[in-house]
């Protein structure tokens, strides 16, 4: 009996993830032209960064403002190893990028996790700026302001991944990995620990939770995926230079998570989709578009607690009693989480 119930749950999970994979595939099939495919490809790369990053700043409540440094590090390690200084193949270089980014994040976690709250935010901001300056000036590593160009396309056997459409599929595979691992972590003891840390870190520590271990783990986990995304980003570009990895890029990741909905897995995804679409729409505003964007950020932060994903769920909640005569599960869960008082 118990087993049957368990099997039912596993089936549900498998079906759910298969559905998500199908949505990604459907997006690929529906994309009309190369421009849209390119947007989708870049959005997928952003999502690889942002979903694990959401665990750090949303679930755990540690605002890191230098995530682009890990993204840039991943891109530059791949660039350096494949074209700039060495002549390695793409895949080992990507692996090296992931390992190096993780190692750097691990080392950085020692000074950074002596900090909390605003101190942590500004400390990571400092790291972001530091990384940008290093990319800019360490020519041996990064090619300096001229940037790195001509990273060879990854190949699988004879199959060369060199078009936007193929890159989108490659990124989608890693996106599924990022999404699934984040979901797996959140539903288990890590997720509980992160929520405990956000609500009251001292209390969690007093109750015997090894707070630092979880914090360090999530920080490195988010950085590894940022590095992976950077490594994927490198061959997608004809060339890239430090201006892609500024503090502003870091801010963008934060914007994705917060306006999408902090503390949820779908929130960051909604955020990336929303901003990507919005950027296309507000191009009509010409040079005012930054202003429209800024205003929207302010409005969403002020009036949509729980972000856009939260707003969608609240709307769903409001419709449920009308459509199906059920109570409002989400509003209650928000209250219990202390997000929407």
């Amino acid at each position: 009996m118990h087993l049957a119930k368990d099997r039912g749950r596993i089936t549900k999970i498998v079906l759910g993830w298969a559905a998500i994979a199908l949505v990604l595939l459907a997006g690929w099939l529906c994309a009309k032209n190369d421009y849209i495919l390119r947007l989708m490809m870049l959005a997928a790369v952003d999502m690889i960064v942002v979903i694990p990053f959401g665990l750090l700043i949303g679930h755990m409540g540690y605002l890191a403002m230098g995530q682009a440094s890990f993204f840039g590090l991943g891109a530059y390690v791949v660039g350096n190893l494949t074209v700039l200084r060495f002549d390695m193949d793409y895949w080992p270089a990507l692996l090296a990028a992931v390992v190096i980014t993780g190692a750097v994040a691990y080392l950085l976690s020692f000074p950074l996790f002596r900090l909390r709250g605003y101190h942590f935010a500004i400390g990571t901001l400092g790291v972001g700026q530091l990384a940008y300056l290093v990319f800019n000036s360490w020519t041996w590593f990064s090619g300096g302001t001229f940037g790195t160009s001509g990273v060879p396309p990854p190949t699988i056997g004879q199959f060369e991944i060199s078009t936007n459409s193929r890159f989108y599929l490659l990124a989608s595979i890693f996106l599924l990995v990022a999404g699934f691992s984040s979901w797996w972590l959140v539903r288990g003891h890590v997720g509980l620990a992160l929520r405990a840390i956000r609500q009251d870190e001292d209390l969690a520590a007093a109750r015997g939770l090894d707070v630092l271990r979880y914090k360090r783990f999530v920080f490195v986990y988010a950085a590894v995926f940022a590095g992976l995304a950077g490594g994927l980003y490198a061959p997608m570009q004809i060339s890239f230079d430090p201006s892609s990895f500024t503090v502003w890029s870091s801010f963008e990741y934060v914007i994705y998570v917060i306006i999408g909905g902090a503390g949820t897995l779908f929130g960051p995804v909604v955020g990336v989709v929303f901003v990507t679409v919005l950027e296309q729409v507000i191009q009509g505003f010409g040079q005012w578009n930054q202003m429209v964007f800024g205003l929207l950020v302010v409005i969403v932060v002020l009036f949509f607690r729980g972000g856009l994903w939260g707003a969608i769920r609240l709307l769903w909640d409001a419709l449920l009693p009308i459509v199906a005569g059920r109570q409002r599960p989400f509003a209650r869960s928000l209250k219990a989480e202390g997000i929407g008082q």
Partner: protein
Amino acid sequence: MVALTIFLQQVIYGISYGMNLAVAAAGLALLFGVYRVVNLAHGQQIMLGGYTAYVVSTSLGAPYLVGFVAAMLAMGLLGVLLELAVFRFLRNRPLTDQMLASLGVFMVLGTVALRVWGDFQARAIHMPGRDAAILVGGLRLDASRIYTVLITLVLFVLLYLIVYHTHLGRMMRALAQSEETAALMGIQRRRIAAIVFFLAGALGGAAGALLGGLFNVRPDMGFQPLLMALVIIVFGGMGSIGGAVFAGLAIGILYNLSVFYVAPTLGDLMPFLVLLAVLMVRPEGIFGLPSRRA
């Protein structure tokens, strides 16, 4: 001897730069100390302060000091406006929300300046003694730099008097200690909040007018001082104005020394390296209280 003169020269430049940064940081520190918010839009208040000073003193031809005061008043009013429109909704919200909202304001204000002045052209403010200097021994004391240091000293004395020797200052410090108790003692929190935003904005505007006078006015001039000011308030201890002054001077001097003796790149890196080093040893900053749940 010559080496010593050059060294002192760099220290002097560092002091004048550091004092300007300290003015920018003091605004942020005040805001954080009393209101518990880190306002990233402060960077754009610095920039718009520079433009206000430019318009009044250079385009309209008024004396520099008039432009300076105009910049302080205008940015103080902008601060009050921001408090009314944005920040009062952010009380008791997670810091992610506060920082992101102020980032949105940052973007809006940046676009306004870029649209109004149209380009990334650098503009010079006419300052008294921009090209004059006093020579003492081998040391060159630029008149404009002496002038800005004097202005910052006056500002800090005024700020000190306001915070520690007026009724208003006492109310502000009471709010910083405990908001609830202060409210129970009959302090009108909303009014003090508006005043604090005015003061912080005015300090930002002053920093902009000074930095714009020393260097140039540009639509993106607010970002670098903002980063430096953030480093300074953490370095000095969040919410401590004295710490901000000390850290501002230290960063300014270190910046100039490393630019001159090693490489300009190291100068840019320096504040962040210092920040990481300080945080390793003393996470709460030099003059800060042990960091609580912020």
